[in-house]
């Protein structure tokens, strides 16, 4: 197998002391970020991104992805010990994880969470290892119309499948696409939407926006809530770990089902959060005694954690193979790739083999190292929560500012970050989703270029998006997804749907 050989080469690239140290540093920072209130995966990666600017791309992506794994692990700690989900996708873990901690089985719950996270990621990484090269070599045949159709598909599926009000998703997305266009037009060299401002000439940097939207706004939101907490301190002994692992084979159906759900939803844009809930609900539905869920059942930890990690990891598949991120964090990693001068997309697998396979190998290695690390250091990280938020909040603000400034060495960007912080705060509170905005901002220029190149190629005929079977079916699928709620409603009315209780959510 070609993929296998390349993967081994990837491991060879990674197995140096320097990379391993970076990996551990990244994981520790990530767990730290995941445990702290008001910070999570995307914020952590965005804030810590500047640290990596001076590294070579492979070291940088290894460190960043480890921050991401660490944050995912860290979220489980607060969910189980304190009943505080760090991220939307940790919510389902609290249902059974916290009751277990209350019954004095915190160590068991944590071991279950970490182990199932590991299994979920592993399945997703295996999928990436074998599927990503195939997709990317297939995508090498893509021309501008195909790429635009794929971008369209991404945007439309956010609108059609998202849980938020449709017009709010549309607002968020079109605003992102518009702001991506500010500055010099890449095709004609003309200035757009700068209003004579020299600062806007550079355009609105994606990472600056993300740091404001996720970092600053999250601090503001966190301050609104009661920050008092009480929870359990826990340490994990080897005996508990081994006893949980011994029982693991009993739950293979749950683990496999959740991994599958996670991988599927992770690849679908905008599906990452739904995965953990779906994993949990299906485990509950297929159980012999559904009533025992929510009262501290270990399967209630296995199911959502496996799905959450599988989706978090597989969200990187479309990013690597097509240059389309499947989640907010993947979008930020994609922004990082661009900073290091790498152009994400199918060519990445051809032009930067070392980088891609180094990254994939780091997913395997990072998860193994991460599992060992969290299992041994839980007590230390749980006690981080003792640090008062009044000390943590200003440090996060400073880190955000450093991050925003470092990207282009511009003071203007610090102000821009502050502005986006306010925008993010208001948007979150009135239910305008930020993920489509992030995605649109990072993909905006590429989507526009693809559109214009296809238009130039066809002489302005929109039929180019139906010019062959491939591009035609992607475009049609995109439009179907855009109007999916309408179609779904119509089908339900005609009685064509399998669901007996239609639209019961």
């Amino acid at each position: 197998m070609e993929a296998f050989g390349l993967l081994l080469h990837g491991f060879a690239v990674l197995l140096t002391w320097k990379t391993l140290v970076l990996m551990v540093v990244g994981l520790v920072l990530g767990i730290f970020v995941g445990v702290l209130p008001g910070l999570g995966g995307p914020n952590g990666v965005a804030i810590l991104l500047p640290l990596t600017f001076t590294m070579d791309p492979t070291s940088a992506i290894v460190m960043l992805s480890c921050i991401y794994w660490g944050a995912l692990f860290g979220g489980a700690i607060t969910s189980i010990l304190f009943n505080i989900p760090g991220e939307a996708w940790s919510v389902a873990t609290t249902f059974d994880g916290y009751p277990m901690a209350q019954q004095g089985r915190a160590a068991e719950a944590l071991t279950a969470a970490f182990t199932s996270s590991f299994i979920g990621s592993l399945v997703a990484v295996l999928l990436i290892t074998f599927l990503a090269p195939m997709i990317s070599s297939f995508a090498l045949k893509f021309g501008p119309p195909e790429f635009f159709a794929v971008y369209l598909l991404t945007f439309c599926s956010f609108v059609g499948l998202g849980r938020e009000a449709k017009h709010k998703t549309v607002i968020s997305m079109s605003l992102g696409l518009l702001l991506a266009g500010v500055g010099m037009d890449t095709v004609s060299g003309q200035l757009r939407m700068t209003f004579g401002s020299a600062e806007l000439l550079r355009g609105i940097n994606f990472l600056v926006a993300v740091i404001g939207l996720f970092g600053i706004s999250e601090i503001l939101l966190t301050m609104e809530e009661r920050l008092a907490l009480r929870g359990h301190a826990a340490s994990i002994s080897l005996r508990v770990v081994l006893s949980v692992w011994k029982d693991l084979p009993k739950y293979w159906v749950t683990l496999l089902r959740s991994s599958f759900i996670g991988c599927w939803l992770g690849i679908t844009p905008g599906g990452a959060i739904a995965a953990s809930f779906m994993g949990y609900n299906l485990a509950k539905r297929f159980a012999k005694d559904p009533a025992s869920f929510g009262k501290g059942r270990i399967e209630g930890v296995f199911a959502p954690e496996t799905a959450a990690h599988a989706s978090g990891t597989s969200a990187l598949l479309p990013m690597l193979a097509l240059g389309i991120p499947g989640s907010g964090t993947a979008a930020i990693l994609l922004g990082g790739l661009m900073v290091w001068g790498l152009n994400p997309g199918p060519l990445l697998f051809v032009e930067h083999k070392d980088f891609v396979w180094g990254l994939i190998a780091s997913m395997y290695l990072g998860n193994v190292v991460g599992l060992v690390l969290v299992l041994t250091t839980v007590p230390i990280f749980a006690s981080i929560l003792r640090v008062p938020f009044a000390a943590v909040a200003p440090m996060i603000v400073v880190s955000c500012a450093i991050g925003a400034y470092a990207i282009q060495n511009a003071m203007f960007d610090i102000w821009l970050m502050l502005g986006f912080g306010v925008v993010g705060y208001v948007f979150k509170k009135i239910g305008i989703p930020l993920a489509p905005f992030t995605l649109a901002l990072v993909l905006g220029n590429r989507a526009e270029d693809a559109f214009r190149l296809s238009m130039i190629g066809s002489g302005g005929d929109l039929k180019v998006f139906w010019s062959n079977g491939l591009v035609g079916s992607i475009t049609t699928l995109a439009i179907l997804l855009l109007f999916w709620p309408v179609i779904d409603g119509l089908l339900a009315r005609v009685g064509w749907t399998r669901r007996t209780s239609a639209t019961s959510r």
Partner: protein
Amino acid sequence: MSRTDHEIVVDDPTAPEDDSPSVVSSDTVEIVVCLLLLALAAILGYDNWRTGASWDSTGPEPGYFPFYLSVILGGGSLYGLIAALLVRRAASETFVTRAQARRVLAVFVPTLLFCLVTQFLGLYVASFLLIAGFMRLIGKIALWKSLLTAFLFTAIMFVTFDVAFDVIMPKGPLEAAFGY
């Protein structure tokens, strides 16, 4: 059922009260945001139309793509505006209570001042002032702890970014006095 073996307890003495009166309702904010977005869409749409939003011999002009996006943004915000106006009569959710607003401003105002100070005195001085001031005045943490934490954090940032990783931050007169 609930055993009292809690071992980590953190209190929040200044937490916002639950019964604090509402400052503004979500619907009102939504209407304001939609109006602002509508105005933004109009300005950007006009600018793109001026740049050229039609076709010429080489294909779409630079303003073409963003012009239609402004139209979509405008449409979305108009829809949101109408939707928010229609549901306005129903019992509206609170956007922010007075106690919450006080806490949010307690972070936002220092952050704003921090940006301002960064502009004139450099990032490290501003960071020291922000952390020490915030911990002391808002967190009510002992003065020596606040100063020490602020100094250590700022020093670590300086060594990490300016010295070790060569990521240069904005500096002011203080750093200049030390020759940086």
